C-alpha cells in the first residue's frame, strides 16, 4: 500500500503556498475589476456619471428601504470575512510540522497503543547512527494500519545518497515495519545536504 503517487512531492511542501496563490489571484482580480470600474465612472467611460456625486440619491434610497436587513447582513458578512482572514493569517504563521500520531490497534489479546513520538524518535536515532548522517528528524502520521513517516535527513555534502537511501529502506524501515507489525509503512524521505563534512560530536 502506497499512500503517495510516484514521484509526487510530499503535500506539506506546498502548503500554504497553494492556498495563497488561489486567494491572492481571486482578490487581485477582484481589486483590478473594482479599480477599473471606479476609474471608468470617474473618467466617464461608462455613461455620463463623472459629474454625479459618488453617493447618489438612488443608493441612499435603496439602503434606507432595506434598512431592516441591510445592516445585519453587512455585519454578518464582516464577521465571516474577519474569520476567514484570520484563518488565512494563521495559515501563514503556523509551522509545517505537526505532532506525531499515536498508533492504536485492537487485537485478540487486547488493544495495543504505540506512542508515535517514541517510535519517531527511535527511528530517527537509528538513522543518526549511519555514516554521513548529521541529523535525522522523523514524524509519524496516519493510523496503525497505514502509518506514514516523514523523515528529514541532514547529510554531509559528500554523502552517497543512493547508498544511504537503500540502507534506510532495507534496514531502518524494515525494523520499523517489524516494530509496528505492518508492511504498509509509507515514507517521505527528504535529504538535505549540509556544509559540515563530518558527524556531530556529542
Amino acid at each position, binding site marked *: 500500500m502506497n499512500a503517495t503517487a510516484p514521484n509526487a512531492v510530499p503535500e506539506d511542501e506546498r502548503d500554504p*503556498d497553494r492556498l495563497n496563490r488561489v486567494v491572492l489571484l481571486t482578490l487581485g482580480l477582484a481589486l483590478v475589476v473594482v479599480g477599473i470600474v471606479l476609474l471608468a465612472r470617474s473618467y466617464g467611460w461608462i455613461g455620463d456619471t463623472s459629474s454625479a*456625486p459618488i453617493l447618489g440619491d438612488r443608493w441612499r434610497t435603496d439602503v434606507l428601504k432595506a434598512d431592516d436587513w441591510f445592516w445585519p447582513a453587512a455585519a454578518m458578512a464582516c464577521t465571516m470575512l474577519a474569520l476567514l482572514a484570520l484563518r488565512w493569517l494563521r495559515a501563514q504563521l503556523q509551522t509545517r510540522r505537526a505532532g506525531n500520531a499515536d498508533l492504536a490497534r485492537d487485537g485478540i489479546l487486547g488493544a495495543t497503543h504505540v506512542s508515535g513520538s517514541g517510535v519517531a524518535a527511535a527511528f530517527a536515532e537509528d538513522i543518526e547512527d549511519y555514516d554521513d548522517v548529521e541529523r535525522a528528524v522523523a514524524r509519524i502520521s496516519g493510523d496503525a494500519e497505514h502509518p506514514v513517516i516523514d523523515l528529514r535527513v541532514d547529510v554531509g555534502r559528500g554523502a552517497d*545518497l543512493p547508498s544511504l537511501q537503500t540502507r534506510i529502506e532495507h534496514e531502518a524501515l524494515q525494523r520499523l515495519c517489524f516494530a509496528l507489525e505492518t508492511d504498509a509503512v509509507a515514507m517521505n524521505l527528504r535529504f538535505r545536504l549540509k556544509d559540515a563534512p563530518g558527524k556531530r560530536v556529542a
Partner: protein
Amino acid sequence: MRAVSRVVAAVTALVLAAAAIAVLAEIVVTAAGHQQAVLHWHRWHDDALTHAWSSPAVRQIGFGLVAAGLLMVVVSLAGRRPVVLPLRRNDGRVTPVVHRRSLEQTLAADAGRIDGVAKPKARIAGSRLRVRASTARHDTTGLAPAVQSRLEDRIAGIHLDHRPAIEVKLHRSGA
C-alpha cells in the same frame, strides 16, 4: 517567490481582518445608538454626497486598487521553483527527495573546488542546471567543460529522478 507570497498574503489577511472588524464594530456601535467608534464614516458619508466621481480622490483610489490587484495577481502567478527534487525510487513505499537549495549550494561548492573557478552559483530551474562563475584566468580553455564534467559526475551520483541539462557560463573577472 514563496516567501514574498507569504508576506503579501499575511499583510493582506491582516488588512482584511482589521477592516472587517472595524466595520463590524462600527455597525454594532451605531445600532446601539452611539456615535462612531473607530472609523470616521460620518465624514466619509458627507464627502461621498458632495464629491463627484471625477474627483481626484476617486481616481487615486481607483489607481491604487488596480495597482494592488495587479501586484497580487503577479505574485500569485509568478513561477515557483520546487522546494525539493524527486530522487529515483527503489521501494514503492518510499518517496525520496532532496532539498533543492542545499543541492544547488553543494553543486556550487563542487564547481568552486576546480582550480581557476571563483564565486560559483548554481541554479536549478525546470530541467536545467545553470552554473555561473568567474575566473581570473586569461586562457579559459577547458575550464567550462571541466566544471560541466565535475557536476555531471556529481549529479549522476545523486540519482535525481530527472537529470537536469547543465549549462556553465564563466565570466572573466577584472585583472
